[in-house]
């Protein structure tokens, strides 16, 4: 009579075997290699590294393969691996003005030291499906090359700061907080907020950044600059006392220039919103910069009226590993709670029905 709808170990194993089969797809087609994913889906790899909070192109590509292209699942795989790694320390701050630039654009100046470098961008492509790509084995067009212009590429915000028009950020030697060790607490310091946003879900950051543009906590932004390229990571071991080069990573940095009306203690000036991400992720870095600036409302004496300015709202909901876990946990059995709700509702309905009967009788 009663067949329990319960899954044992066998059901789980069978489900996972089936999952493996669907991952492989049609066995008549060659299997995707991790190297192919790493080379030919670099933006997916970048996003997984950012949200997975771990810079490792090979592991990110492997995670994408294992997750059948589900990038949030892939970021989760990478995070779960990351947790098992020892933490040796904090790197020295990246010197992004010494970046090996692949792309660098400013929306605030027509020309500036270091120039405008378009780089490999989808901007100005016409979004027409390219059916030639469907044919495999086509000759690859070589991109023309030119000399790298010599000279420094100073940051736009620094140029403004020298003129006194951009609020200076306080330099500090204090070790920044680390969300992977200490839970979020409020008020959250800016380094912790930035760490949270840097790992945050791209869609969530995009929507929040967009909302600030449409009037929910807005503050008209200019793209001071977006720069994409490679920077050297250095680490100073306390026992040596001097920095050692660990290697080079690809990053995208965005500095937004925002108006600021000034306060009793500070004259009107520009303030910055900051975005930084692994790899090439302009949408992500720009959204992050918009949200970072919105989250500074309280410290700049602005009214907090919109979701993007609300620290708890933004920082508690940005993490897609947490979010997807909790949303999807609703799939787990809840019949014990549901049963208590059923009995509850039946009791209430029975009482209402009794009252209605009595009223009708009177």
């Amino acid at each position, binding site marked *: 009579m009663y067949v329990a709808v319960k899954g044992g170990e066998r059901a789980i194993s069978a489900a996972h075997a089936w999952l493996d089969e669907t991952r492989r797809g049609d066995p008549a087609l060659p299997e995707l290699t991790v190297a192919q994913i790493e080379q030919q889906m670099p933006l997916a790899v970048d996003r997984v590294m950012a949200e997975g909070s771990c810079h490792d192109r090979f592991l990110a590509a492997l995670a994408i393969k294992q997750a059948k292209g589900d990038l949030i699942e892939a970021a989760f795989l990478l995070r779960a691996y990351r947790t*098992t790694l020892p933490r040796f320390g904090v790197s020295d701050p990246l010197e992004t003005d010494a970046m090996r630039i692949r792309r660098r654009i400013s929306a605030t100046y027509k020309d500036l030291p270091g120039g405008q470098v378009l780089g490999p961008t989808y901007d100005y492509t016409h979004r027409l499906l390219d059916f030639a790509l469907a044919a495999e084995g086509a000759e690859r067009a070589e991109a023309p090359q030119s000399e790298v212009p010599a000279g420094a590429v100073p940051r736009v915000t620094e140029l403004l700061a020298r003129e006194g028009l951009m609020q200076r950020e306080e330099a500090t030697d204090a070790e920044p907080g680390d969300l992977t060790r200490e*839970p979020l607490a409020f008020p959250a310091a800016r380094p912790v907020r930035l760490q949270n946003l840097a790992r945050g879900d791209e869609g969530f950051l995009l929507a929040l950044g967009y909302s600030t543009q449409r009037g929910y906590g807005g503050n008209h932004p200019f793209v001071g600059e977006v720069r994409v390229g490679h920077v050297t990571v250095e680490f100073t071991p306390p026992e040596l006392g001097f920095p050692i080069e660990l290697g080079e990573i690809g990053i995208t940095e965005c500095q937004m220039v925002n108006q600021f009306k000034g306060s009793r203690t500070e004259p009107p000036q520009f303030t910055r919103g900051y975005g930084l991400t692994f790899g090439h992720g302009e949408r992500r870095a720009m959204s992050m910069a918009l949200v970072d600036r919105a989250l500074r409302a309280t410290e700049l004496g602005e009214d907090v009226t919109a979701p993007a300015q609300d620290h*708890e709202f933004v920082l508690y909901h940005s993490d897609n590993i947490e979010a997807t*876990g909790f949303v999807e946990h609703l799939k*787990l059995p809840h019949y014990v709670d549901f*049963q*208590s709700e059923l009995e509850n509702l039946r009791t209430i309905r029975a009482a209402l029905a009794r009252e209605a009967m009595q009223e009708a009788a009177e």
Partner: protein
Amino acid sequence: MSPVMEGYNFAYLDEATKRMLRRAILKAVAIPGHQIPFGAREMPLPYGWGTGGIQVTAAILGPSDTLKVIDQGADDTTNAVSIRRFFTRVAGVATTERTSEATIIQTRHRIPEQALREDQVIVYQVPQPEPLSRLEPRRAETKRLHSLADYGLMHVRLYEDIARYGHIAKAYDYPVMVNGRYLMAPSPIPAFDNPKMDRMPALQLFGAGREKRIYAVPPYTEVKSLDFEDHPFRPIRAPHACALCGSRESYLDEVITDDRGGRLFVCSDTDYCSGRVALREAAE
């Protein structure tokens, strides 16, 4: 049975992380019902699927322990199977489905029917550790309310139920006062289970991984379900007997048997139920 995995520390977490967890657990035991923030780690299982409970269990588990894992009161629900299998793989500990044989019981949504003992620990998986969360979403504010023991919001919420329905309509995750000081979320167990928490001989630990909080109820601590003098707390269960073992005391699951209103009720605690069936069969 799955073999123990190579290359991982006993019970998966490294010893430094376990130490961090144990410190949080000790703090939690010292301040019954108070939520202790801790540096929850990403686990290889998703947030919301028991990562808090898993981390607490991993921190207290020893090689000589016997682990029981239940979800909805049952040992054979998929997530319970998955978590039990996880600990079998990473710790190689003995597992059991018998409540009486377990030294650690990790649970989601139920407390076993059989009374627990002093030499047992029950670890609850907690989705939302903050009992005031639906009334006040800001944690900075709920923290203040807890420090002032200002629980008027919750009393008003319960009173509103009485005004509207004639009784308190909260059926699960029914708020409790611990040791007369802290308002605590008992996790989404049915209100039916709340009285079992009061002065329980076993240590009760609560882990919320996603929300990064641990809390505890030490043995024999007073746990009182919130109520009013004229509207005392009353546990709810379906007014039926279990179709398998005939129990009229246990908490029941409702099972739909056809699309014409056919249904039956069976114990949600599968170990309790099968134990009673075995006793009856032995007597026959």
